[in-house]
């Protein structure tokens, strides 16, 4: 086994020169596009979805950048995608419509999909036309994913799916769900016997999507019920009963990206805008402390991205980024509240900082839930370090 020192090593990630030219192009694009969005709208970042915006990104060639050229991608490395991702997040662009497809569904399909799936789906992902959702959690399976009950049964006509997925982000606007379903009811151990399916949410009879209001009053996650929903053999993604491992392979990139520490970037910027107009010496230290955290997390995230581009196994380093990033994002609204002492206020005529603070204060609890709860992450870290 590798030593702890090697496992926790974060070599600095270097972005290639070409990525910096790309960065400038993205900034120029955003300088124009972002004018139409208020600070409050920008504060949603990857929780905000706007198909028109995603299609513009697609037209620029900035979606599915790591996908092969023959399917509409750019055949670039994960580092170029990283630059586009962090620029759009920092600006608070409404990237939610393409985020999941661009980050993980596209790359997953490219890696293990059939020729038909690739030819059909990847070009649409690259154009920003298609929103994907991920069906994992269920009413009785949150963190305990291996206890999933929804199942897909092979029939003469295809796969018959029954069960309920819960907390499925964007299912109400998505064309597709990549869902994890039990295909071998007798498999041992418990996490064996799952398969992934690409399900057409709009055109499959027996699929019902019910939006769930979150505590801010907004609808972005859903309950998706499958009642004898029949999908064709083509819907199977990858290998039958290999779903658990396939899902695991998506996680490093899902957990280590810039979205794990930039969810509150708009809040930080709005705070700076207020403070740079005054002369509040006491706020300086807090600002510096936030910035030190931000720069540290970026160095970690970029390090993981560099190693991913080299094809290294970075699952542990990625989990650590997610854990620390969530803690940072989650505490930021409270710190801002302490610095400026304003009341969070969502009303239209409130100051932008008060609006953004209000929204992110309420969204913050989700930061340590989505993508793996902090308890699960710490369990994984301990296990990977050989502790347990």
């Amino acid at each position, binding site marked *: 086994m590798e030593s*702890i*020192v090697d496992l*926790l*090593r*974060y*070599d*600095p*990630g*270097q*972005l*290639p*020169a070409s990525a*910096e030219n790309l*960065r400038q192009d993205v900034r120029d694009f955003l300088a124009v596009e972002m004018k139409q969005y208020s600070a409050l709208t920008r504060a949603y970042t990857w929780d905000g979805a706007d198909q028109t915006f995603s299609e513009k990104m697609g037209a620029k060639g900035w979606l599915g950048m790591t996908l092969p050229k023959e399917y509409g991608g750019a055949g670039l490395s994960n580092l170029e995608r990283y630059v586009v991702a*962090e620029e759009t997040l*920092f600006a608070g662009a409404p990237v939610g419509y393409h985020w999941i497809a661009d980050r993980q569904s596209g790359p997953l399909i490219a890696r293990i999909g059939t020729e038909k799936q690739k030819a059909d789906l990847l070009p649409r992902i690259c154009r920003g036309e298609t929103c994907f959702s991920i069906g994992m959690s269920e009413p009785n399976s949150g963190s305990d994913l291996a206890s999933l009950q929804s199942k897909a049964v092979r029939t003469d006509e295809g796969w018959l799916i029954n069960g309920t997925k819960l907390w499925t982000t964007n299912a109400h606007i998505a064309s597709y769900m990549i869902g994890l379903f039990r295909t071998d009811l007798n498999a041992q151990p418990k996490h064996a016997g799952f398969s992934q399916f690409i399900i057409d949410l709009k055109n499959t009879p027996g699929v019902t999507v019910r939006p769930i209001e979150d505590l801010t009053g907004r609808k972005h996650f859903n309950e998706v019920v499958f009642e004898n929903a029949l999908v064709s053999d083509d819907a199977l993604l990858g290998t039958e009963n290999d779903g658990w491992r396939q899902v695991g392979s998506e996680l490093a990139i899902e957990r280590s990206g810039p979205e794990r520490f930039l969810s509150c970037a708009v809040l930080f*910027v709005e705070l*700076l*805008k207020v*403070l*740079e107009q005054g002369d509040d010496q006491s*706020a*300086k*230290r*807090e*600002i*510096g*402390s936030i*910035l*030190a*955290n*931000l*720069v*540290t*997390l*970026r*160095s*970690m995230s*970029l*390090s993981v991205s560099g190693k991913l581009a080299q094809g290294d196994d970075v699952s542990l*380093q990625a989990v*650590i980024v997610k*854990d*620390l990033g969530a803690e940072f994002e989650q505490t930021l609204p409270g710190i801002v509240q302490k610095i400026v002492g304003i009341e969070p206020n969502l009303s239209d005529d409130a100051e932008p900082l008060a609006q953004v603070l209000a929204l992110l204060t309420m969204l913050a609890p989700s930061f340590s839930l989505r993508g793996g709860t902090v*308890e699960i*992450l*710490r*369990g994984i*870290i*301990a296990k990977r*370090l*050989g*502790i*347990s």
Partner: protein
Amino acid sequence: MSDISSMLEDSVTRLFRDKVDREFLQEQEKTGWAAQLWELTEELGLSSVLVKEDNGGVGGDWADAYEIVKGCGRFAVPLPLPETIVARWLLDQTNLVAPEGPLTLIPSIDGSDAKRIPWGRNAVAGCTTQVTDSGNIVRLVDFTDVVFTHEVNLAKEPRDNCSMIANLCDGDVNVPATASFYLGAMIRSAQISGVAMALLEQATIYSGERSQFGRNLNKFQTVQHNLARLATAAASLDSISRFAFATMDNVGFKDDAKTDVRFAIAAAKSRASECVDLICALSHQIHGAIGFTYEHSLHFYSRRAWSWRSEFGGSSYWANTLGDIALGLGSEKLWGAITALGINETKTAN
């Protein structure tokens, strides 16, 4: 990782793991200077890692130096090796000849007084950077005839005071007047990152050996989560310290503290200093009462961390410095400065 880095990490780890154990550290705290260990590091050329090959050094870069400096923290090495590495680099930027033997960095000089000089009594000379009317200089102070008032930090490492700084020579240099202070902060952040690793390693081993309620401590979920938190802190300190050293290679000192390596150093030392409470508290908590005894080795690491976090500026100082950088750049330019820090300018030029 470069070949030099990998080779250095291996030899540093081997040397210090072999020589610097609990008995050695206990003995050294009583007797003072670890002359033999110093000679062994000199045989490996460690203090000259950054000196150009033409000048008799190893010709390594700051990323290589990081492995040594981190190792000095991880093994609680009681030597001014990090200070000497920086001093030799500073002197290598001038026309001054570096003396043989251990060197140190002088945190500040007030008239003819200098306080809290690391390893002052053991060093042959000390360095600092200063501003003069004709430009910035590296000031080299010969310690041969200097009388030190002995003080120590919490880990009993010498932190000596002296007055009558007289025997000195200056060399012109193209780095900021604050460079020696910044580089002092940078090595301390790397040493703290090394200590964090040691605190984690010790806690991991101990929790796998100690049994209570019929099972090893590491079978308790609370303990596992504390170890995971300790590991994430250690990981983050490795990342940001390594990043600061790499930025020294990639960007270095330029005209503007807001956009050169000083930004990265301020972030590294601010984080490192701020994390000391957490890493020490977690490791001590996991060790229980035995870790609070002098007999156990844990305190050789925690006592160093508790002092190092204040040396060359504590978390407040560096957070304030970063706050100045952030407000100086303003909301419009800050992000651009953050992303520019990751760029290897030499590579970009190719």
